[in-house]
């Protein structure tokens, strides 16, 4: 009996102590139950059935290691503040041998064989009662360097390539996400039985701080005895980017020069990269236009509309980002008004591309000009194969010729060339180039807009506005030429245009001779002129018989000096503070964005507004 009482008392004591503990636990600990884990910003979760333990938990105040847990289950921690660290490859980065390391001392070292990617989060503060979900993003801290020989000719004097990669970062400190900036040499030897041909080696390295602090690469070429036959070195540091492959291609055997100066560096994403678009509601199409789907043949559609007597005007609407092609002859005989309009695009998105084989022409040869209200090209990347519009004895009278928001890159010849055997057989009332960019013009003996100078073939109103004329060669042909036979009233407006001639020499920008006019109204304002100039050569404007003029507020880039601006005193363009190379982003390539936002060009909105954005 006594024994039973003692036994009972003992069990009650145990029960009491257990209850006491349970109560104390309930009071002192909280459960971590909700995690949002990301890998480089994208949701990540542990695959079921895997025993990986991505979480490392440390005391916030002391940095002491507390636990290494899986994210499969909830777990409880004593109430308090903690630092959570997560990695999708925990056993590699923080192996058991360093598991208990204090967070303050925890450094992920550059893998000696350079074969270990480092993906690890910051040390995220997370405090009890853990009611808000834990957000933790594991970030790639390494990228891959690939050294690749491009040789096709082998060099049998060596049998091994030893790559010595000197990194500036030897480790990554988890607590403050900083790198240990101590240089370290990573070395790897690779046998080559083809004397360097096909040599390829990969190194997984911490991403580099900046271009100057990239990794240095030295290649030691060893013979069969291990002696160095030759050493070659890349002449500049190579940058390593997280989650990317930096491919460096070079010739090992192309030179005895110890410094490799000819090599290419390409950065490629290692994993899938992602772009996301939200489809927008279908764009509005101007009334009466026929929409061409990407796989529609524009020649078939155009000819059907052209030959349809019920259709008074041909109106085509082209999809952005799509290429269309007019075959030779399709547009050689326009007989009715023509509107070809591309879908408007946001900045950086490709416009509809329209390639045209052969010349465009219109009209009859009957002596009675064909009357057409409008020829219009808008929102297009235009690629003519030759002279764009070229007329030889066709008779027409057009109210409006409009080019708006179009790009012409590498136009192979002239844009508009008139020729006829009789006066007034080719008449244009209004000719507008607005918000267009001509890049890499290569004008020979014909002007960009050239009229016949033997007969009266007038364009009565010419407007160049908010546009760019960037010429590799301008010569004396000029952007507008042969106006001298135009009768009656002539108006020319050149406003907010950027004009660049890279060729230098005898250039002529505009030949505006109104000798045969009754009145000639000229406006030239807010333009920017630039390029390469030779002292004592070149003319901006050739003017004759101007009856009213407004030539104001024009600028040229510092250093661009022509022999003759061709204007009156007080009308000369003003020099900018900066020369061409400093003012424009890349004038040679035709990127004329204004770099200096404090320049007078930017502040006074001079030149093509396209480049002021």
């Amino acid at each position, binding site marked *: 009996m006594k024994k039973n009482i003692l036994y009972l008392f003992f069990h009650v004591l145990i029960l009491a102590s257990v209850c006491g503990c349970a109560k104390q636990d309930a009071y002192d600990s909280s459960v971590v139950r909700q995690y949002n884990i990301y890998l480089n910003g994208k949701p990540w979760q542990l695959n079921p059935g895997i025993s990986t333990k991505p979480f490392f938990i440390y005391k916030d105040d002391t940095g002491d290691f507390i636990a290494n847990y899986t994210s499969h289950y909830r777990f409880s921690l004593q109430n308090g503040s903690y630092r959570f660290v997560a990695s999708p490859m925990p056993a590699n980065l923080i192996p058991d041998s360093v598991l208990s390391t204090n967070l303050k001392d925890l450094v992920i070292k550059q893998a000696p064989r350079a074969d270990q990617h480092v993906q690890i989060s910051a040390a995220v503060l997370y405090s009890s009662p853990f009611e808000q979900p834990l957000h933790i993003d594991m970030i790639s801290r390494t990228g891959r360097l690939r050294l690749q020989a491009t040789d096709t000719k082998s060099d049998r004097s060596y049998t091994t390539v030893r790559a010595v990669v000197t990194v500036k970062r030897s480790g990554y400190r988890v607590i403050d996400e900083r790198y240990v900036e101590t240089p370290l040499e990573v070395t790897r030897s690779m046998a080559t*039985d*083809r004397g360097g041909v096909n040599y390829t080696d990969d190194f997984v390295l911490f991403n580099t701080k900046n271009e100057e602090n990239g990794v240095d690469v030295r290649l030691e070429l060893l013979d069969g005895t291990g002696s160095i036959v030759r050493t070659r070195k890349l002449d500049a540091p190579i940058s390593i980017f997280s989650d990317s492959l930096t491919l460096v291609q070079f010739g090992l055997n192309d030179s005895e020069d110890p410094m490799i100066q000819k090599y290419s560096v390409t950065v490629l994403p290692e994993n*899938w990269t992602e772009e996301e678009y939200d489809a927008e509601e279908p764009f509005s199409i101007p009334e009466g236009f026929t929409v061409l789907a990407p796989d529609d043949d524009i020649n078939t559609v155009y000819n059907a509309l052209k030959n349809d007597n019920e259709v008074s005007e041909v109106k085509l609407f082209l*999809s952005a980002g799509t290429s269309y092609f007019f075959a030779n002859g399709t547009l050689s005989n326009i007989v009715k008004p023509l509107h070809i309009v591309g879908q408007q695009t946001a900045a950086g998105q490709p416009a509809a591309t329209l390639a045209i084989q052969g010349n465009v022409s219109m009209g009859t040869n009957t002596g009675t000009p064909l009357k057409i209200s409008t020829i219009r090209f808008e929102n297009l990347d235009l690629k003519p194969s030759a002279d764009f519009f070229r007329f030889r004895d066709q008779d027409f009278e057009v109210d409006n010729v409009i080019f708006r928001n179009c790009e012409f890159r590498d136009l192979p010849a002239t844009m508009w060339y008139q020729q006829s055997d009789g006066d007034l057989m080719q008449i244009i009332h209004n000719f507008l180039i607005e918000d267009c960019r001509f890049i890499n013009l290569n004008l020979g003996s014909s002007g960009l807009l050239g009229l016949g100078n033997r007969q009266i073939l007038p364009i009565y109103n010419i407007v160049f506005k908010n546009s760019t004329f960037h010429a590799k060669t301008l010569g004396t042909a000029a952007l507008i030429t042969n106006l001298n036979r135009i009768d009656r009233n002539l108006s020319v407006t050149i406003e907010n245009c950027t004009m660049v001639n890279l060729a230098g020499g005898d250039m002529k920008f505009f030949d505006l001779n109104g000798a045969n006019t009754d009145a000639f109204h000229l406006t030239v304002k807010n333009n920017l002129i630039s390029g390469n100039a030779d002292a004592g050569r070149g003319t901006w404007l050739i003017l004759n018989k101007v009856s009213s003029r407004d030539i104001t507020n024009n600028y040229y880039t510092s250093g661009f000096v022509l022999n003759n601006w061709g204007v009156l005193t007080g009308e000369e363009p003003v020099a900018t503070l900066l020369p061409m190379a400093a003012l424009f982003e890349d004038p040679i390539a035709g990127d004329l964005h204004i770099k200096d936002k404090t320049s007078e060009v930017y502040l006074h909105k001079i030149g093509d507004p396209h480049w002021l954005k």
Partner: protein
Amino acid sequence: MKHLLSMLLFALLLSACSDKENNELEPKHISENPSISTTMKLKLNAASLTAFAAQNVSAIDVFVYLGDSLVFGKNLALGDGNLQIEVPLGESLKTFAVANAGEIIDPESLQKVLISQDVGSQKEIYVSALTTFMSDKTVSTVNLELKRMVGQAVFQPVEAVEELTGITTFDALDVHFNNVVIGYMPGANRFVMDKVIVRTNMATGFKASVYSFPTPDANLGNIEVVYLNEGSEVNRTLRPLSVAIKYESSKRTVVNMPILNPAFLAHKLSASSRSASSGTSSGVTFQEYQF
């Protein structure tokens, strides 16, 4: 006796021929001159092998050409990445390897060989660069790296699954991916483009995707959607969606479309049928749209 020996020899030759693996292509040069062939190692780098493990790819197609003619073409098990190929000795040869292709067309000619997608363009294809090597005695290994050559376009509805659950006016979508690059000719460096139609339904969340070789020119991809009910077209997008997809290796382009938004569709909704009728079933709220 002599006659018997000749017959025996002929029988032996026949049996040797019949031992050839079914998946082996006809390497002309080797069979013409078997005495001067050599065996070389083909080594795939670690990056390729890791990618294949993730893709469950266990074998690759290897092709070797002398001039324009195929001299070796086999489907080889990957193993540890060290493969063996038998090629004519003392020749300058060209090789490439392919994993996970839908089909290899005209492999006999380097200029004509076409790596093609399967129907529906669902293959994540890996291709090596076309590599030139000499098959002399001093060279024993050719290193190849197979890289994922395709990009991907993914179409997905904006609407949540709950919103789509009660739809009765269409039961499937044909997603037309225009300008998908479905074939690549490594010898000629040319690409083959086509439209790919992928049918999707509620079971797949009305999502659809294709893989494509890189877009070689300005003909960018886009998407049109045809709505089907019991196999018949009931509606379609007004025009191709305003997206321009440039396929690049390892680039995934996700296109989100509100598939229930009538503004996108060719057949507009009438004012009365535009509003959704809704109801609940088993606690799930659903909306039913009349197209």
